[in-house]
């Protein structure tokens, strides 16, 4: 069937709500408004205000309430409008959700799912556009997912809800209108492994989320230029499935990491370090990174575009590691 990323996310919520009475959705404007990005549009009518809960603008309170409800037998899905707003709930996410199981000696798992929008590309400027999923991927106790395809938008939520521990799902805002074919019986997917989205033999492009389509576009351009790029979608940012990208790098001997986060102290840095630790002698060229410029993401379109990884910059980096600078 023809669908969109947004609709696939909505179907995933609907499916989870139907499967399990303990599941409910809460967040700012998820009900009457239909969700800031219209993901939950129509769910209030189907499930009622007890299970599709509009909250006050109190990120710390409602994320923490999700933690408490999860501790007490429910399976909440908490929606945060954007990753920048999640910083108002960072105390709850780090100090409680990610920590309670360990600090209680294994007594209190937190089966909570938090969904939030991430990323730039819609001229929303510096307080609605950042890619901070790498920060969250730093934290032991969390699972961090980044669906980049319709299948993953549809399929990651249910296994996330089945995970006894907190799971963060990052939905890139440029993907909500992504449309395409999704199998009628599409359902839960594996949330532990990275995926090879395009096989290739000359260089490995390692990316996730909103940058996947850009890396695939770059791979097409590279193909026209005689370079056969493999594209890996990390899918799970924590725990990282390093085996999949290390296996690829050992075959292609070259790696470019594409990450919309900032370069310094980032997820891309972690991946480059893993490659250096595990596969240095398999490399024929230094690892390259294509990241966002280290600026708060600007409003003006030309500046925003210049700040982000783009197919051309990805292809240039790949070309350089294959052919030399």
């Amino acid at each position, binding site marked *: 069937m023809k669908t969109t990323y947004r609709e696939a996310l909505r179907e995933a919520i609907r499916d989870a709500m139907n499967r399990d009475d303990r599941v409910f959705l809460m967040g700012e404007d998820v009900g009457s408004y239909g969700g800031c990005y219209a993901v939950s549009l129509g769910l209030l009518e189907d499930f009622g205000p007890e299970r599709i809960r509009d909250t006050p603008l109190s990120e710390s309170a409602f994320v923490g309430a999700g933690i408490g409800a999860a501790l007490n037998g*429910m399976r909440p899905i908490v929606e945060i409008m954007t990753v920048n707003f999640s910083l108002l709930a960072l105390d*709850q996410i780090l100090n409680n959700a990610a920590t309670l199981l360990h600090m209680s000696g294994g007594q209190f798992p937190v089966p909570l799912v938090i969904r939030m929008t991430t990323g730039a590309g819609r001229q929303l400027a510096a307080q609605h556009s950042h890619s901070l999923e790498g920060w969250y991927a730093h934290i032991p106790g969390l699972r961090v997912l980044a669906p980049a395809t319709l299948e993953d938008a549809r399929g990651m939520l249910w296994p996330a809800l089945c995970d006894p*521990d907190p799971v963060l799902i990052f939905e890139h805002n440029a993907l909500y209108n992504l449309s395409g074919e999704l199998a009628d019986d599409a359902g839960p997917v594996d949330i532990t492994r990275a995926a090879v989205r395009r096989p290739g033999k000359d260089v490995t492009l390692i990316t996730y989320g909103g940058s996947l389509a850009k890396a695939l576009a770059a791979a097409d351009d590279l193909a026209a230029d005689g370079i056969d790029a493999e594209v890996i979608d990390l899918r799970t940012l924590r725990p990282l499935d390093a085996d999949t990208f290390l296996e690829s790098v050992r075959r292609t001997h070259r790696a470019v990491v594409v990450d919309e986060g900032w370069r310094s102290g980032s997820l891309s840095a972690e991946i480059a370090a893993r490659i250096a630790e595990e596969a240095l002698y398999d490399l024929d060229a230094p690892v390259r990174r294509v990241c966002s410029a280290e600026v708060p993401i600007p409003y003006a379109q030309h500046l925003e575009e210049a700040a982000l990884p783009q197919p051309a910059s990805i292809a240039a980096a790949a070309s350089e590691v294959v052919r030399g600078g």
Partner: protein
Amino acid sequence: MKEHLDLLREMLRIRRFEERCAELYSSAQIRGFLHLYVGEEAVAAGVMSELDPQDAVVSTYRDHGHALARGVPMDAVMAEMFGKETGCSRGRGGSMHLFDATHRFFGGNAIVGGGLPVAAGLALAHVMRGEPRVVACFFGEGAAAEGEFHEVLNLAALWRLPVLFCCENNQYAMGTAFAKEHAAGDLALRASSYGLAAWSVDGMDVLAVKESARRATESIRAGGGPCLLELRTYRFRAHSMYDPERYRDKAEVAQWRDLDPIDRLVELIRPEFTDDELGALESEVSVEIDHAVATAETADFEPVTDLTRFVTSEVSP
């Protein structure tokens, strides 16, 4: 009389347990931060006496009294202070992070205000399942300056969540006096402005605490929405074992010590309650503490090979 004796026993257990902890700290058997509750026992003893086993409790980093009064076994609490595997958090939490699922004790939270959102969520689950439970959420007056206090009081009142907010106003946020931290002095008034029932209680009078907790929990169980009690109390000892107490004068401490909740209750129940009976009660408590210390000393530490256990659950998704 039995009720009075139960309250007295609970306060004595907490007082003597903590006095022993202070000694063990001096002899380096307990490390880390140690925040004593001495002086504030009436609050824990009074509130907990009105809770049912199926209710839930959220606590702070000053949590020994809450845990003991809730029924967390003293052996497990003391073992936790020693960092032992038999501790109520397997030695991973320590003094500030006592947990016990069996007693629905959802932990000492050492982020000031950090437990309030969790309490709201625990209560939300009760509401969604139609269970007439109360969540008792303890925090200090320092938390009333945190954003989470305001967010959660609004949310709890808006959704009529069955939470008993217990604000232990011991007059100091660590070393900052109440008047230096709050422009408006009346915390109950502040709470009631969010649309919930709130009143102040003499937190040095265990019977007054108990009576207020009874009224509040009855109202909450009947669907009346959350309540907040401002329990006016005082910690007799330093904030933690590192605190030189430069911020308050000895005369003030002495004044509050005259209101010692244990002495007050003992005075109240004399002459029926004799010195012999008090001595017997003290001995009973002392035996329990001796046992807790002895078992904690001989218990094993968790093997280092278990270091990374419980970061994630031990079942696959």
